[in-house]
């Protein structure tokens, strides 16, 4: 299990390759990558991501450990950035390795749902004219009840 919380960009290709290479005995590897995009259609210039140093790492570890308990997993990777990102930048990625594909898929899906609502990150969108915090969506909270 590897948890990384950093301001710097990460290299998706290198991370995916290294993650897959570390466990050649796993039949299934799933990765999810989140990319900054202008969802509001109001010319997003900067996506600022604030987090709670100290708690962030603990919360993410707790989520990853929960996934490892629920599914048969060989490995879990979570990378999450903070700071000022621009559209097209990769915010975060998760990767799961499992003997069977259903475990790898479900665990990655679970990790995303929980990182969304239970890891202390907050997003603020900056356009040329405005800045505003992204509101949590009811559907993101509701998604947790799937698990």
């Amino acid at each position, binding site marked *: 299990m590897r948890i990384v919380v950093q301001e710097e960009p990460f290299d998706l290709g290198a991370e995916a390759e290294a993650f897959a290479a570390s466990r050649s005995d796993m039949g299934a590897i799933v990765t999810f990558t*989140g990319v900054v995009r202008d969802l509001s259609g109001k010319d997003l210039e900067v996506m600022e991501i*604030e987090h*709670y140093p*100290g*708690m962030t790492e*603990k*919360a993410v570890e707790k989520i990853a450990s929960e996934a490892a308990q629920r599914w048969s997993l060989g490995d879990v990777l979570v990378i*999450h950035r903070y700071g000022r990102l621009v559209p097209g930048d990769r*915010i*975060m990625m998760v990767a799961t390795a499992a003997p069977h594909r259903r475990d790898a898929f479900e665990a990655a899906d679970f990790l*995303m749902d929980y*990182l*969304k*609502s*239970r*890891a*202390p*990150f*907050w*997003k*603020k969108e900056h356009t040329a004219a405005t800045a505003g*915090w*992204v*509101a*949590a969506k009811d559907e*993101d*909270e509701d998604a947790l009840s799937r698990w």
Partner: protein
Amino acid sequence: MDILYFAWVRERIGLPKERVTTKAATVAELVTELRAREDRYAAAFADLSALRVAVDQELTDFDASLEGAREVAFFPPMTGG
């Protein structure tokens, strides 16, 4: 005890962190004390349903005890991922 604020709570109160001395036994009592301080606190804590709280970096609720707590953080619902 250290109190931390994040996102719009930090912006509304105007600081990221402060040290307070309190006899509050629960988060809710601490909130009552903070609200009474100044308008900016009253505004930030006006609607608790829009807030989340962590005690010693563990997400909890407003009924939580502050016994032995060193750090309390207030923030809006998280938007990670």
